[in-house]
C-alpha cells in the first residue's frame, strides 16, 4: 500500500484516533473535503485536503515511519555491493571495499531488462549498458519512450558527441544515428577521426553500398557523398540501379539544374550530363562561365572529337560544327542520312544560295558552271596557245563571288599516247605542268 491509498477511508481517515505520520509533514487536513479525487476508485472526500490551521511543525524525514513502504518523497536507497546477496545478484566487479561500484538496477516491470547505469559523477548522464557476453562492448542506450529505438551511444571522452550505433547482426557495421526530432530521418554517421566529417549512411541491405547523405533541409534531396581525400570535393551520387553509374551532381543554386559529372581521372574535365529519358544520349555540358552557352558534347569514342551542338528549338536538327580555328566559320553540316555526304555550305552573305558541293551520288546535279567557260581544245605541251575559251573564262571569273576558292571542272580531251604518257606524268595534256625555275606555265 502506498501513501495515497491511505487517504480517506469511507468511515473516516483516522485509525484508532491517531493521524498518520506523514499527514503533518504534508500539511494536510484530511478531515475536510471533498477535494479533487486522486483515485477514481476511492469515495468522494478522499482527495487532498486543505492546509491545516495552525500549521504543525514538520517532522524530520529521519524520524518518519517507513514501515509502510517508500513514499514519493523518500529517495531510493541503493544498496552497496557488499550488502547485496551474492547468490542472486553477483557483481562481476565485486570487491569488499568497492563502494563506488554502481550496478545497473533492474527494471521493476521487466527484471530481465538492464537499465542503463548512472554515472557516479554525473547522475544525469546515462551510461551505455554493457553487453553481458562482451563486457567491453558498449551497447547503445535504450530510449525511455521507445524501448525498441536504439539510441546512439555516447562517446566517453565527449559526451556531446553522438557515436554511431552498432548493428546487432554485424557489430563492425556502423549504423547511422537517428535524428532525435525525426526518428525516421537517417542522420549521417560521424567519422571517428574527424567528427566534422559527415560520413555517408550505410544501406541496411547492402552494407558495402554507400548511400548518399540526406540534406537536412530537404530529406528528399540526395546530397553527394564527400570524397574522403578531399572533403571539399563533392562526389557525384551513385545511381541506385547502377552503382557504377555516376550521377551528375546537383547545382547548389539551382537544384533543378543538372551539373555535369566530373571525370575521376581529370577533375578539370567536364563530362557531359546524361539525359534522363535516354541515358545513352550524351547531353551537352554547360559552360561554367556562360550557362546559356551549350557546349558541344564529347564523342564517347573519340573524346577529342567535338560533336555538333543540338539546336534548342529543333533537337533533331544538327547544327553545323564550328571551326576551332575560326569560330565564325560554319563548317558544312553532315547529312544525317548519309554521313559521308558533305552538304553544301551556305553562303554567309546569302544563306539561300547553295554553293557547289561534292556529292558521291551520280544522280546529283553537277554544280553550276560559268556559261562563258568551255573546255580547252587539245593543247600541245610545247606550244601552248591561249584560246578564246580560256580568255573568256578569265573574264567570267569576275562574276564569281569573292573570298572563295574554285577548281575549274575538267572535261575529257584528247590524251597522250600510252608510250609518252608515263614520261609526261599524265595522260591529259591540260595537266602537264612541268616545274620550271622562276615560274610555272
Amino acid at each position, binding site marked *: 500500500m502506498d501513501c495515497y491509498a491511505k487517504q480517506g477511508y469511507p468511515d473516516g481517515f483516522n485509525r484508532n484516533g491517531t493521524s498518520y505520520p506523514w499527514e503533518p509533514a504534508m500539511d494536510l487536513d484530511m478531515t475536510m473535503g471533498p477535494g479533487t479525487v486522486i483515485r477514481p476508485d476511492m469515495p468522494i472526500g478522499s482527495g487532498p485536503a486543505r492546509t491545516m490551521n495552525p500549521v504543525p511543525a514538520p517532522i524530520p524525514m529521519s524520524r518518519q515511519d517507513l514501515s509502510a513502504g517508500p513514499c514519493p518523497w523518500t529517495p531510493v536507497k541503493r544498496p552497496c555491493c557488499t550488502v547485496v546477496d551474492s547468490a542472486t545478484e553477483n557483481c562481476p566487479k565485486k570487491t569488499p571495499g568497492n563502494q563506488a561500484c554502481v550496478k545497473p538496477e533492474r527494471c521493476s516491470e521487466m527484471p530481465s531488462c538492464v537499465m542503463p547505469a548512472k554515472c557516479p559523477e554525473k547522475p544525469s548522464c546515462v551510461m551505455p549498458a554493457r553487453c553481458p557476453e562482451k563486457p567491453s562492448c558498449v551497447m547503445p542506450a535504450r530510449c525511455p519512450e521507445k524501448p525498441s529505438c536504439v539510441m546512439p551511444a555516447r562517446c566517453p571522452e565527449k559526451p556531446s558527441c553522438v557515436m554511431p550505433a552498432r548493428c546487432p547482426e554485424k557489430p563492425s557495421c556502423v549504423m547511422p544515428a537517428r535524428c532525435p526530432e525525426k526518428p525516421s530521418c537517417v542522420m549521417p554517421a560521424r567519422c571517428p577521426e574527424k567528427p566534422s566529417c559527415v560520413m555517408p549512411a550505410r544501406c541496411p541491405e547492402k552494407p558495402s553500398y554507400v548511400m548518399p547523405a540526406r540534406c537536412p533541409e530537404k530529406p528528399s534531396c540526395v546530397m553527394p557523398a564527400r570524397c574522403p581525400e578531399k572533403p571539399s570535393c563533392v562526389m557525384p551520387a551513385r545511381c541506385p540501379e547502377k552503382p557504377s553509374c555516376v550521377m551528375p551532381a546537383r547545382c547548389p543554386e539551382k537544384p533543378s539544374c543538372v551539373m555535369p559529372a566530373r571525370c575521376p581521372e581529370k577533375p578539370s574535365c567536364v563530362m557531359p550530363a546524361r539525359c534522363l529519358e535516354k541515358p545513352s544520349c550524351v547531353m551537352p555540358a554547360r559552360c561554367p562561365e556562360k550557362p546559356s552557352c551549350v557546349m558541344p558534347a564529347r564523342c564517347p569514342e573519340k573524346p577529342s572529337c567535338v560533336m555538333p551542338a543540338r539546336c534548342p528549338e529543333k533537337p533533331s536538327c544538327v547544327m553545323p560544327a564550328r571551326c576551332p580555328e575560326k569560330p565564325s566559320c560554319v563548317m558544312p553540316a553532315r547529312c544525317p542520312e548519309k554521313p559521308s555526304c558533305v552538304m553544301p555550305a551556305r553562303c554567309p552573305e546569302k544563306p539561300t544560295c547553295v554553293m557547289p558541293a561534292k556529292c558521291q551520288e*551520280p544522280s546529283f546535279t553537277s554544280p553550276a558552271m560559268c556559261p562563258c567557260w568551255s573546255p580547252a581544245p587539245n593543247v600541245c605541251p610545247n606550244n601552248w596557245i591561249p584560246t578564246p575559251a580560256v580568255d573568256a573564262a578569265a573574264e567570267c571569273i569576275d562574276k564569281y563571288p569573292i573570298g572563295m576558292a574554285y577548281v575549274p571542272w*575538267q572535261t*575529257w580531251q584528247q*590524251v597522250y599516247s*600510252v*608510250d609518252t*604518257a*608515263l614520261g609526261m606524268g*599524265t*595522260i*591529259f595534256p591540260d595537266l602537264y605542268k612541268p616545274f620550271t625555275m622562276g615560274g610555272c606555265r
Partner: protein
Amino acid sequence: MNCMSDCDMLLKQVFLTSFAVDDVVLYLDTHPLDKDALNYYYYVADLREKAVEAYQEQCGPLMNDGVMDENCWTWLQDPWPWEGVCG
C-alpha cells in the same frame, strides 16, 4: 643478255599501260558517266592485260595469281631482286 632485255621491254610495256589505266581511273572517279573516258579505260585495260600476259608467258609470273604451270609453283623460280636478273 637477250633474255633480260626482252623481259625489261615487256615489263616496261606493263608499266606504261598500268600508268595509263591508273590515270584514267582517277578521272573516272570524278566523271563516272563520261563515255569517252570509259571507252579509253577499256582500251588501256585491255592493253595492260595483254602486256602482263606476254610478260608472264616469257619471264614468269608478275603476281602469284600469274602462275600458269600446273606442275610446278614457278613463283619461286624467278630471280629475286637480290639474286641478279639472268636466270
